[in-house]
């Protein structure tokens, strides 16, 4: 999202800003996390990267699916611990078959193409985007990247992993 545009998250009616001028010691009717977010949220931080995965031989890609699920769970827990707010986390893995997943911090939605579970692939492209409020972008990018690469290389130790910066 371009920073040159307007601030999409300005509180047009001022309700939240007014409520959050006070200290936190009193009893709030809303949740504490939400209370803090209302003070710090303007534009989200975005992690958005694509990876080219190459395997030494054609293989089942279910381990990659599991790795992506572990990554998503770890990222959600990290955002929660940091009192951030999930806008949306989503990803798409594509070889001859494809698999996509997403979460808003509640349940995880996942949908494979019909042949995914039986497919054997030698190459896979993974695209991921995490849109998070209330956490610095560099911090988000560092954590998300490190965590993703960790789970992928744990799942398939012989993979070659390259960041794809050619898409746009």
């Amino acid at each position, binding site marked *: *999202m*371009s920073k*040159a*545009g*307007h601030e*999409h*998250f*300005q*509180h*047009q*009616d001022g*309700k*939240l800003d007014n409520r959050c001028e006070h200290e936190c010691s009193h009893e709030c009717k*809303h949740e504490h996390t*939400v209370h803090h*977010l*209302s003070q710090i*949220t303007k534009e*989200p931080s*975005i992690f*958005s*990267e*694509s990876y080219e995965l190459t395997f030494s031989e054609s293989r089942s890609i279910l381990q990659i699916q599991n790795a992506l699920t572990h990554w998503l769970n770890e990222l959600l827990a990290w955002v929660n611990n940091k009192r951030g*707010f*999930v*806008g*949306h986390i*989503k*990803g*798409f893995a*594509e070889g001859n078959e*494809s698999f*996509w997943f*997403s*979460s*808003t911090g*509640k*349940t995880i*939605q996942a949908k494979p*193409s019909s042949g995914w579970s039986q497919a054997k692939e030698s190459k896979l492209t993974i*695209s*991921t*985007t995490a*849109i998070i*409020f209330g956490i610095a972008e560099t911090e988000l990018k560092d954590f998300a990247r490190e965590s993703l690469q960790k789970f992928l290389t744990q799942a398939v130790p012989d993979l070659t992993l390259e960041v794809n910066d050619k*898409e*746009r």
Partner: protein
Amino acid sequence: MKVLLFGGFLGSGKTSLILDLAKFLVARANTDLTNSQSPSLVIIENEVGERGIDDKILKANGLQVRELFSGCICCTLTTELTVTLNELKETFNPQWVIVEATGMAYPHRIAETIHTYGKGIEELKILIVADAERWEELTEIVPGLVEGQLTKADVVFINKIDCLEPETLEKVKICIHNLNPTAQIFCVSGLQGLDPETWNKAVLGNE
């Protein structure tokens, strides 16, 4: 060329509903013997982030997609949107164009741009997807955005009703009706898919 403009907060389920709608429209076009040779549907995707996800999901399902990235079509990419729409009209003249806005856009601003600069557009509808599962959180954290997206919608889909108790859903429905009394409201689950009858009413206006 009819334009369906989809908005709604991040993660509300816009892409899932668009996928469902696209299947409905393509199936309908395929059974229409009077249909011309022009493609029935093109989707314009505007996404947050450097790497598109939604466009890939839609393309993997065999749909024609145009991407507009690195900006927002409600503010920084208005010219690009107009150029894309007018080019589509001239080159393909599809029956339907679905525009998926980012979850942080105000769709009525996009509609203003299309009304002002779009050529040959027979009809434009604003369809907003509301995330029922996160309704309480979102109206606490981003009330201005949620209200701004909903108040000028023609159609509102209250999505993820499979995650809610009926009483909670009723409260959400009342809130949305109070924000926009003229909108058609449909309670749906994108996960489970929509009844064709819902698309008939919401998109084609067939009661």
